[in-house]
């Protein structure tokens, strides 16, 4: 049996990691996964594994699965509003299916 749930993905500066995680947990997510990355957007190019001199500017990609779609949407809007005027970053939602709905 599969259940349709929402996945929120946040790509942002490492600097914001603590705050983003706090927001994700507050919204009720039971977990999250982070991978390191590099990238380019409006702001500036972020080198990857090369010695970066300024690590805090590198990009992280956080994904969190939320059982409730409305919560996910509210979280995405909140994060956009609070952080992404000043800091680099994007948020998006993906529809996914999971086996154990109660896990999320």
């Amino acid at each position: 049996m599969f259940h349709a749930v929402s996945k929120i993905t946040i790509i942002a500066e490492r600097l914001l990691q603590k705050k983003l995680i706090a927001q994700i947990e507050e919204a009720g997510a039971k977990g999250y996964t982070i991978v390191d990355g590099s990238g380019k957007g409006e702001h500036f190019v972020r080198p990857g594994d090369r010695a970066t001199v300024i690590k805090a500017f590198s990009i992280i990609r956080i994904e969190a699965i939320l059982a409730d779609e409305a919560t996910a949407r509210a979280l995405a809007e909140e994060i956009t509003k609070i952080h992404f005027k000043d800091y680099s970053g994007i948020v998006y939602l993906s529809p996914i299916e999971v086996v154990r709905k109660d896990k999320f």
Partner: protein
Amino acid sequence: MDTLLDFAQTFAIQLQKPTLAFLLGGMAVAAFGSKLSIPDSVYRFIVFMLLMRIGLEGGMEIREADFRAILLPAIFAVVIGCAIVLIGRFSLASLSAVNKTDGIATAGLFGAVSASTLAAGLVVLEENEIFFEAWVPALYPFMDIPALVVAIVLAHMSEQKTNGKNTERPKAWPILVDSLRGSALSALILGMILGLITRPEQVFEEFYDPTFKGLLSILMLIMGIEAWGRLSELAKVAHWFAIYALAAPIIHGLLGFGFGYLAHLATGFSPGGVILLAIIAASNSDISGPPTLRAGIPKANPSAYIGSSTAIGTPVAIAVCIPLFITLADIIFA
């Protein structure tokens, strides 16, 4: 004239020394489009090793230091850090072509201190057998933190004025704590404490000290590669940033030299100490400063301040200022 010749000669000699040679080598390699790069984890480890080494030595020798002798240079360091940011605020940041917030953030970074420039300065002084008080590197935070605090407060005030809105004023204490928690200052201070209250002489002599110059040569290579890589960044912002980045290290260094000279007259601060204070003043933060500024002045464009500092400020501080102040000391303390 003679001075110029002197400087040219000192500069030529420094060029041959690994410190400068690896810096320029890194720039050349990057300019050639080479894929040569040092892994990020090695870079972070090297910075740790250098700062731990500087801290340990400082800590071990501070045991016998006369704390009254430290007081005046420490106060001067604070004054210089604040003064550099104020100078930047009323020069670079007040130009109409320059975004005020970007200008203030850049001034903050140039007021703050670079661990790599400091390490390079220490090695060059040692190579030239110029004595300095072992606690001089400990002046680092005294200049670094006030500069960052002042920049963040100034940026906030300027944004207040623009927006009319009355948002909460940034407090100095959290910025200070945040600075001390940065990996660079933490390593330096941990090293000093370990040097002061424990007996790390053996591990210092067998491990941290003998690798110092070698690791520095690799750090210089990295700084060179990075400098070249960031030049394109700098091209995206107003030319004034490049001009500021060229001139500021020299002017700040001279300011530092002046205050150092006062300390020399007042409390016998050594000529080597004066040079080192000038180098610290000339340097601009490359490791701990940027994240603190990014958090404290989010509206400032990192391309402006990191470009200015990494692409031009640091190479000028290492390649021009270090030999310059050694020559100057030669003349003044002759």
